[in-house]
């Protein structure tokens, strides 16, 4: 089972944080901070694994990948395969890339919600449900279609906010 997904930048600012077993916010903050503390001390070109027992308790593993200004982190237990988890990060990033065309940190900052939708399609309650980015994209498009459709019913606020942001 996957315990947590985190995306944070190289300054330690979280961009996405999902914990599949409930953690109070203070604990979340502490976990993110300690993960970052270890990540930032690691050199380039070393393995992508971390011993996470001290942070997440026994039987926990952590893989991360470093893309440009972002760390993508997955925390999981012994019923996942380490290399498969690295692939999963790859899938996630590929999907983001397809979604935003050359994804960069700013895309993630401003599309917090979409990023959530994507990760929810890939990981469901701590389990990997989808590993094909095309399938994920399909679902994402459907969902956003549905969202805009449901929003356009409310004419007044929509038109006003549309006008305001123009």
């Amino acid at each position: 089972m996957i315990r947590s997904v985190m995306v944070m930048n190289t300054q330690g600012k979280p961009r996405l944080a999902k914990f599949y077993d409930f953690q109070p916010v203070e604990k979340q903050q502490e976990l993110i901070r300690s993960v970052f503390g270890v990540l930032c001390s690691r050199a380039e070109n070393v393995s992508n694994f971390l011993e996470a027992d001290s942070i997440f308790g026994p039987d926990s593993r952590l893989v991360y990948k470093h893309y440009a200004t972002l760390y993508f982190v997955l925390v999981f237990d012994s019923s996942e395969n380490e290399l498969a988890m690295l692939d999963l990060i790859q899938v996630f990033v590929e999907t983001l890339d397809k979604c935003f065309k050359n994804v960069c940190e700013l895309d993630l900052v401003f599309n917090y919600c979409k990023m959530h939708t994507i990760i929810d399609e890939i990981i469901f309650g701590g389990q990997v449900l989808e590993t094909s980015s095309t399938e994920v994209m399909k679902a994402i498009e459907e969902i956003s279609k549905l969202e805009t459709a449901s929003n356009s019913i409310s004419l007044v606020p929509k038109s006003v906010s549309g006008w305001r942001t123009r």
Partner: protein
Amino acid sequence: MAGGTSSLMDTLFQRTLDDVIKGFRLQLVGESAFISKALDEIRRELKSTDPHTKSTALHKLSYLSSLHHHDMSWAAFHVVEVMSSSRFAHKRIGYNAASLSFHDATPVLLLITNQLRKDLTSTNEFEVSLALECLSRIATADLARDLTPEIFTLLSSSKVFVRKKAIGVVLRVFAKYPDAARVCFKRLVENLDSSDPQILSAVVGVFCELASKDPGSYLPLAPEFYRILVDSKNNWVLIKVLKIFAKLVPLEPRLAKRVVEPICEHMRRTGAKSLMFECIRTIVSSLSEYESAVRLAVAKIQELLVDDDPNLKYLGLQALSIVAPKHYWAVLENKEVVIKALSDADPNIKLESLRLVMAMVAESNVMEISRVLVNYSLKSDPDFCNEILGSILSTCSRNVYEMIIDFDWYVSLLGEMSRIPHCQNGDEIENQLIDIGIRVKDVRPELVRVARGLLIDPALLGNPFLHRILSATAWVSGEYVEFSRNPFELMEALLQPRTSLLPPSIRAVYIHSAFKVLIFCLHSYLLQRESITSSCPDNLALGVSELVLKREMLEGSDLATCEGPTAHGEQDEGFNPRVSNQSFEDLSVENGGERIISHGQTSTPDSLENGFTYESIVNLLNLIELALGPLIGSHDVEILERARNLLCFIELIKGKLPECLVKKEENLGSEEMKASKIIELMCDAFSEELCPVSVSAQERVPIPEGLVLKENLDDLETICGDIQLPTSISFSLGSPHYEEGVSASLSDLQSKEESEPSNESTSLLREHRKRHGLYYLPSEKGEIVATDYPPANDPKLQDYLNKDTDDLVKLTEESLVAKKKANHAKPRPIVVKLDEGEVVSISAKRPEPKDDLLSGAVREVLLGSDNRTTSSRSNPSDKSSSKRKGKEKLNIGPSELKDNLGDAEKHEHENPSSRRSRHRTHGKERIHKSPGKISEETEENGQKGKQKSSHHHAKHKARRRTDMPLDVVSQAPVIPDFLL
């Protein structure tokens, strides 16, 4: 649309999440100010009646909660409101907020059951998906119970998008409400036959999780998994199936035979490293008795090890360390790679290879490997250096140093490690030095030599990491001073000026050790002198006999020591000086009590003989006075006390020593006699040997009447909080009836201070005080001369014991120790061990009721109900849940059969007989542990198909059986004999 003007304004000018994010980036007013402003807005907006305003506010709040860690539990009710919105966009926000912030204790969870049910049955697959997703995160037992029927329906949904999520949610539902398995499990199993890869991947994932908790229950599904293992081409699915087999195989040996070939096939064929690694891991962890498969796996590991990708190298090392215990050759074959990996750039790889190197350590090579590693640690960075040292220390000390044969070598290795500049393992080294000193008699001379080397080096005192080690060496030198070649040098080392760099608690140990050394020197000097002036046996005998008298209160073994001088004194009477020299030798040997062992004997007396002249003793005393004089004003009570003790003692004897020497051939005056007597007494006090104490010793002590164990000792904590006991080694002072639990060097003094001096020494002191009143404080603090027993029920001591029973142990187990000693083999020095294993074994694992409920339910579905009773028996205490279960059954009630079952179970649980249930638990464990038996059962009980067909029947039978005492073995789970 909007209710009032204010809410209209809110709606018109509300900031969206995007606005908030942009605001963050502008950072016009610091971050925290910005957030608190945004939170104020959100609070107001959430109260709006307009659903759009409300959901936008909630959206912002979720964002702040998730990425800026602001609690949002206060908005739980608003979350429920937004969830129930009919618009998808709002609903989504609501559901996301719920999965983010709800947990088992959230009160409003009770309100969402109907909303979830409505959405689960919605025709819009995305709404269903929202509800499932939320449920997978927040489902409680109640929610799971109430929504089981809906999930059951969804498990066979025609839409893949929904079905896979329904499969995913089953995991959480089963975990929270095991009885759901009775309803849903069959459908879940049916999905294993699905041709859709997404469905298959999801359902295999779920089984992987389920099997990791309770593999036994899923054995009957082995044929399905086997089919997937052979047929599937999807790596994700294969990895999960491999994980399942890794759990099942240990339970069923015949399964292993069957799967080993397909797994090897995958390993040979696959190009995906992840799958290959999973194959390797499965083989080495669960199929390690198949030699050829292991060979293949090790060959693949070799490929990983030489790969450039550090990830693969790391995993290769990990796999190797799994093989290591059973297939040592695999590590040896890759020895070079492993050693080379010690200098890898990646800290993970370095650590992993260090572990492997340590796994290679055995009795035969421990010296070499430690040598290599210690040299290596000198070259590596501080962190890894300490990692290396730490693992050497823990490996060598494992199981009471079972790996060490040459303790002299190990002790000097410890000394060497202490000198490594980055060494931060002072605590561990300290513990081991003392522990070895206490446990291994034969090594003490070497230990003292090593300790001396560290003590006399003034440079070491400047390194704070070494202080703990120095504390141990000081203690060792004091305690085993009789092995020292040159006590004078030791004294100088203990009192060197740079000791002022030590923290007070350790300095106190130094001073106390100096005390012991001084007593030893004086005593040796006196013995030397006595043996020369042995022409006056009467006096000597007189003095000694008094001693004996006192000693009789001590335990018997010590008597030998005391009687020694007497016997010699009498023997020597009238003999010529030729004998006296020899008798001195004997005496000094005896004097150490049983402590001096054969090979210390030859060297010690020689050096002593040369050493102790009157001048040297006087110099010694002067040195101490000079060094400790300033400490009389120390602000640290430990130092102050000990320095006082020592100085006052010197004061006490100093005046009398000269006479001793001048009147060599004359009768001793009463003064000198007293002095020598005092020294004698002190020496006895210190000569008591410290022994290790069994961890469980405390439990064997009956609690004395009137002892309040639960008393709150917080007050004591504030007083003693800053005192750091120098060691946690347990030991005992050899009196069988009086318990004394104090940590090493503190002990002697402490007990002394807490006890009353015996009458005689009190009178001595009183006399002394009269004469040298100048040197006494008004209080009685300076009194130290005593042959003291701690009063049996000294309240202070008892409190102390209660406070930290683990560290400060008591009770001598003299007889036990002696027995153990005799048992040891010859070539290795005796290492005193106590039977400590027994305590640990008691806390056997307790079955978790939930899991058992689940496995019970699962087994029931899979095997018919024959084993139903087995599972319900194994949760002896879960009364309430079973009651509830009985009741709940009525609510769901897809079949009336289950109601009956619930009742049967309830009945069962309400007549709990502790003896029976314990018996049953055993039975169950046995079933788990002996697959052989199970398989026999299997054959007896016939095939799965038959079982299933007689499903209904069997259930009734089982119910009947619950009421009678059962033959446990007949209840073993039945495994379909698919191998036939």
